[in-house]
């Protein structure tokens, strides 16, 4: 229990830091926020000033930050410059699509990467192992956006099996998920392979065999469990990258999700949206890592003793 508590407490400064970064954004971008908001509406200078007062932009910086933070605690992420809707609403309404893609991509990564890594580690330098290593080597090297195009070229245009653009069905999820998840599958394969080879050399495997454990049992009850730890950790650490990769993939496949929304908001300098996205993404990253820590702690209780560095 105290392990959970400690991890939670350690996350708080980071969360606050993320909000500070998000907050500072509006002041780093050149241009006056009030003007940007009223852009194109032919507002008079007095109206702009009044809006500035309303937005609290005349107050000292730390005061503004407190207001910002207070708003955050209420779930208010600001108002979009473009649509004048609540940012929270805009972002949240788009999250299901992005989460679906991210989740499926991670699934692809695990379903392909873990078994491949296991088999490769079980029979190092065998044919399967060499294939796996080759595939993973390439897999890390192909950029996912290029892979997406290639997959579309082959499976959508030439073979016509799958749609090239999102059509709202689950089959529209396949190509994006594969192109995004493939690279992580490659990473997982290498990770797990290395770990499996190491674990088989360890003393406790010898002890397990000495007790009469069959090789199958050794694999499932001992090696697999201990090898899965770095995989779980990696997923957590790469979650942020998977999420942003999903954003780019959404753009390619024409999916309406947080990613494409964020991309257009950045180019149109819709700062409140970007702020909100930073907070949301940062928060979910921290949350995911917390969950990962807990899972790893459950698998390997030794980590509960060591608090994360710093």
């Amino acid at each position, binding site marked *: 229990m*105290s*392990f959970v*508590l*400690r991890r939670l*407490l350690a996350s708080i400064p980071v969360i606050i830091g993320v909000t500070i970064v998000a907050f500072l954004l509006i002041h780093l971008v050149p241009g006056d926020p009030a003007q940007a908001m009223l852009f194109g509406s032919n507002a008079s200078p007095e109206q702009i000033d009044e809006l500035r007062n309303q937005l609290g932009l005349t107050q000292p910086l730390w005061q503004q930050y407190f207001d910002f933070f207070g708003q955050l605690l209420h779930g208010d992420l600001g108002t979009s410059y473009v649509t004048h809707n609540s940012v929270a609403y805009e972002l949240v309404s788009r999250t299901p699509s992005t989460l679906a893609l991210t989740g499926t991509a991670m699934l692809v990564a695990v379903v392909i990467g873990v078994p491949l890594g296991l088999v490769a580690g079980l029979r190092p330098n065998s044919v399967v192992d060499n294939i796996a290593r080759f595939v993973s080597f390439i897999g890390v090297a192909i950029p996912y956006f290029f892979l997406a195009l290639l997959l579309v070229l082959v499976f959508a245009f030439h073979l016509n099996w799958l749609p090239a653009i999102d059509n709202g069905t689950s089959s529209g999820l396949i190509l994006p998920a594969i192109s995004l998840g493939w690279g992580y599958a490659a990473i997982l394969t290498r990770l797990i392979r290395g770990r499996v080879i190491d674990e088989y*050399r*360890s*003393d*406790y495997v*010898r*002890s*397990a*065999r*000495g*007790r*009469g*454990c*069959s090789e199958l*049992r050794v694999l499932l*009850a*001992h090696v697999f*469990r*201990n090898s899965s730890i770095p995989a779980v950790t990696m997923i957590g650490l790469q979650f942020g990258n998977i999420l942003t990769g999903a954003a780019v993939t959404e753009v390619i496949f024409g999916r309406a999700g947080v990613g494409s929304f964020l991309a257009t908001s950045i180019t149109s300098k819709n700062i409140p949206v970007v702020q909100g996205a930073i907070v949301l993404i940062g928060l979910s990253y921290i949350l995911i890592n917390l969950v990962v820590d807990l899972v790893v702690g459950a*698998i*390997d*209780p*030794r980590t509960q*003793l060591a*608090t994360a560095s710093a």
Partner: protein
Amino acid sequence: MTATSSAAATPTTQYGETVLSIRDLQVEIRTPNGVVRPVDGVTFSVRAGETVGIVGESGSGKTMTGMSVLQLLPAGGSIVGGSIEFDGHELTTMSLSALRRLRGNDIAAVFQDPMTSLNPTRTIGSQLREAYRIHRPGTSIAEANRRAEEVLSLVRMPRPKERLKDYPHQLSGGMRQRAMIAIALLCEPRLLIADEPTTALDVSIQAQILELLDDLKARLGMGIILVTHDLGVIAGHADKVAVMYGGRIVEEAPTAELFASPRHRYTQALFESMPTMELDSGRALASIPGLPPQLIDLPPMCRFAPRCRFASEDCRTENPEAVEVAPGHTHSCFHPKPTDIADAEDEHLYTVLAAEDLPTRGGTGRTLVTLDAIEKQYRIKNPSAFKPRRILHAVSQVSLDVIEGETLGIVGESGSGKTTVGRMLVGLETPTSGAVRFDGRDISRLSRAGQQSRSGNLQLMFQDSAAALDPRMNVADLITEPLAAQHLGSRSERRAKVMELIDAVGLPRTAAQRRAYEFSGGQRQRIAMARALVLRPKVVVADEPVSALDVSIQAQILNLMRSLQAKYSLTYVVISHDLSLLRYLSDRIGVMYLGKLVELGPSAGVYAAPRHPYTAGLIASVPIPDPGLREHKQKAGLTGEIASAIDPPSGCRFRTRCPLATDLCATEEPALVLRDGPHAVACHYPLTTDGAARE
């Protein structure tokens, strides 16, 4: 204290029928550089109720012999010849599935390091249950738990039911080993293979575990194969001994017989290179020159010949055959040691030191270093979320003097604080309170300039020589680093010093340009020694100088230390867990327990008549290579586990394990008080001279 090792002292045991019979076993490990034969023609057998000890140094093949019974060989290893017969079945040709039915069932194994030999991510209970349910299919979890608890009580695990839910890292070393033994015994095996089962444990725990194994053997009627490098363990717990060298058994005999009259020159060399209590400190230890052979593609020869003083031409060209010299006593040596050589000096391997090579025993009498009530406390994180940090009492109120020219030994088990004391002596740790004085001056808290001058007087040899030498530097740089750090001496002067020291520590001159990791453990210790001496310190603190080395190499280093002491007029503070080593090496011994100094006095006195119950228990726990004392040692060791240094017991810290403890011991902490001359003890009920006679 005299050793009367005769057949009368050995208890007569009725052994059962032969459980295991190994004949001409040969094991190979395929490596790309050639084929390594760690086991090359080993023959012996084990009967029910018998403990067969296999003793040898590293590279002798003893571990591989043990592992080959259950075919737990490393990758690339296989049995290529000979037979292993168990209960009428031939194990070498058995199918893997049949072998698995035997593993953990009829034949079980216990390994050296229980921390790595247990799966760290699964509870003890789950591993126990697994071991049981594999061989008793259809057992429910509840039944398996019950059996697990039963066996945990059998191995005297405290609070067995709670242990089932613990993970390996939550247990102490001794408890982990008990868990491993429990796992091995779940299905009541007929044969137990124990590979260095106590090497990783503290001395007091070691004795408990070994005694436990003896007891279990008697109860269950098992045969035990005990693989170890420690002759003391063999003497105390093996019924029959096989001495291995270079993949072969060079001598085999009942224990008492072997210790009474070893015949093979290697056995003789082993015995004479150990610092036992009887050894006259006027003698240098027998050191066996050279290193054990690489077991790759060896021609027919006696494998010990290259290192044997008595070797002749036939030793180098023919494989010696086994010769029986007494019932059950065989050896394979062309020129065995004669049975009676008491006065034939040239048949002995040790040398008597000339007077000028001997340091003045006891020193000059002048106090050089004073430890004045030093304490070291560490603040460590509290695992519960909001409590303040806890305090680890590493060293508490230790006061002693180091006399110029003497060798002071500090002995203690893990958690005793002895290493911390050593580090405080040289300034690597600053005492939380109290002072370290050199020549009267307080050197406990110094500036860097002060530290530099201090290093000219006190130096440390680290416990882990591999980590203490920067792998990127060559030997010459390593040795001159202290000079370079203080900008002393010109380049040519430093070079000359390096050569002088390399010669002094017995390294070849070519060593200067090589990197530290290219050397063996013993040679690394020599490098560390040379580095420690380059500033001509007056005091050298040696932290476990030989514990990681093989017995024959240990002797080399110890001899070197003594000769350097005479040559450079050094004062030593030797920190070790090995009592017999300190008995041989040091003039005075200080005994530490849980951060406190509990006894301090002349080595001979402390050994012969320990005053503190802990010291007595420690001495009783030390495996002594003298089978005659086996009977006497029963139940004389220490019980229980070392308490925690974070929350030490009130009053006398030893009281939780002390058979003499009373209420007074809980309320009042005993002070270190002189009794009978220079012998001090911190105990309310110190043992008297007759009370301390070996029980």
